[in-house]
């Protein structure tokens, strides 16, 4: 609960440096929680408070899905679900030059990486890696886009999460999961895409144990 001292972290901090994640802050020599939720620990020295959240707070290196809102000079304004809109330069795309601008229109979906995130300035995005290659980033064409809680998005991105593996057993599809709680899916037909989206959204309410069941049900839902 907010305002409470977290002794476990203080004890751990005595003999080594610790990293305080979201929901924890330092007050003089005390560690105090600022959010309500269970305390999590990841070896060797990272602590954070886990809570259900729907509002995204940008952090450097995050892969996110944004919607292009407008073009301002040589920047595009992108809505990424955080307090501020993010900016992306037209040069931050693969093979983009001053003459060869990317063709982006308001409403386009972008899968991008957060380059710069600070509470005091507007976040900045890129669609290329440091070698100038786009990798999997870029504009998302067609498909279906929906929002979910941040926790679900993170859950899908975990390597150990059985959901995506189980879903790929059912059908081939493309998916882009942004940690800002936005998901884009594309399968062969509209029907499959919508079914997939519904399956993923139903994971939101489901517990961990039910994931397999929901993914398995997907096939039967398709046939009916």
């Amino acid at each position: 609960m907010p305002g409470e001292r977290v002794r476990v972290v203080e004890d751990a901090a005595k003999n080594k440096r610790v990293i305080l994640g979201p929901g924890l802050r330092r007050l003089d020599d005390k560690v105090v929680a600022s959010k309500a939720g269970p305390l999590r620990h990841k070896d060797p020295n990272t602590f954070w408070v886990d809570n259900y959240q729907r509002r995204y707070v940008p952090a450097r290196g995050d892969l996110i899905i944004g919607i292009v809102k407008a073009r301002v000079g040589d920047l595009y304004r992108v809505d990424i679900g955080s307090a501020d809109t993010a900016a992306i330069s037209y040069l931050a795309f693969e093979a983009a030059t001053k003459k060869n601008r990317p063709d982006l229109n308001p409403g386009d979906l972008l899968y991008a990486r957060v380059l710069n995130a600070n509470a005091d300035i507007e976040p900045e995005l890129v669609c290329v890696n440091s070698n100038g290659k786009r990798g999997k980033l870029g504009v998302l064409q067609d498909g279906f886009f929906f929002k979910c809680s941040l926790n679900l998005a993170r859950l899908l991105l975990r390597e150990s999460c059985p959901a995506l593996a189980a879903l790929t057993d059912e059908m081939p599809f493309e998916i882009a999961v942004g940690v800002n709680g936005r998901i884009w899916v594309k399968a062969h037909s509209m029907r499959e895409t919508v079914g997939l989206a519904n399956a993923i959204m139903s994971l939101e309410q489901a517990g961990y144990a039910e994931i397999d069941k929901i993914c398995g049900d997907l096939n039967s839902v398709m046939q009916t």
Partner: protein
Amino acid sequence: MNKTNTENDAKVKLREMHCKFNPLSRCDGSVMYSQGATVVIAAVLGPIEVKTQNLSIEGSYLECNYRPKAGLPQVKERIREAAIRDVLELALLSEAYPRAKMSLQVQELEDRGSIDACALNAACLAMLIGGLPLKYSFAAVHCIINEKGDFILDPEESETQHQKASFTFAFDSVDGDLLLVQTKGAFKIAQFNDIECICRQASVEIFDFYRSNIAKYHSKSEDQPLATIESARSELPMET
């Protein structure tokens, strides 16, 4: 509901509390909270984009709206709104999100006494569920002195008909400091002190209620083994 009178002739039990988390789908955190028959819904949004005129580079701007059950907010509702905002401004860790706005909406569904306290408690729960950074949580308690001079904690509407004085206190969860005092009517200083003590005791019960309900909520949404989470959060960004 109304618990039987325990101490001489004063009623010192809170009415039964209930809450339901995230009944609304489009906000960042919402709660339906009831104390006895008084019911409110509180919803928070934040951090969100702020109008330039309200923009503050040092901390976030806090907006608070209170809607009555029917009609438009009048002076009475505005006062309540201002009281909620005053308390929230104290509790909110506003420097965490500069240049942003935190928005709180409170909708009254049923007013059957002690609506001020109920709205404040709902606001606190909504902030906790929405994941907004707080310095501490807070709890508000309403108490009245009836025409016989008895203290009634968390009164029903029927009991407030012939009240001599009414009090609303809000306490923080860490030091137990007073965050808000609202009084109405005639009373003695000794009575004020007594009532403050009663309310302070009752606030502990509310904090326990917050804690147990939030714990329940988190255990429901995450019934997976802890080890899997800890081993697989490598892609999560960590801030120092």
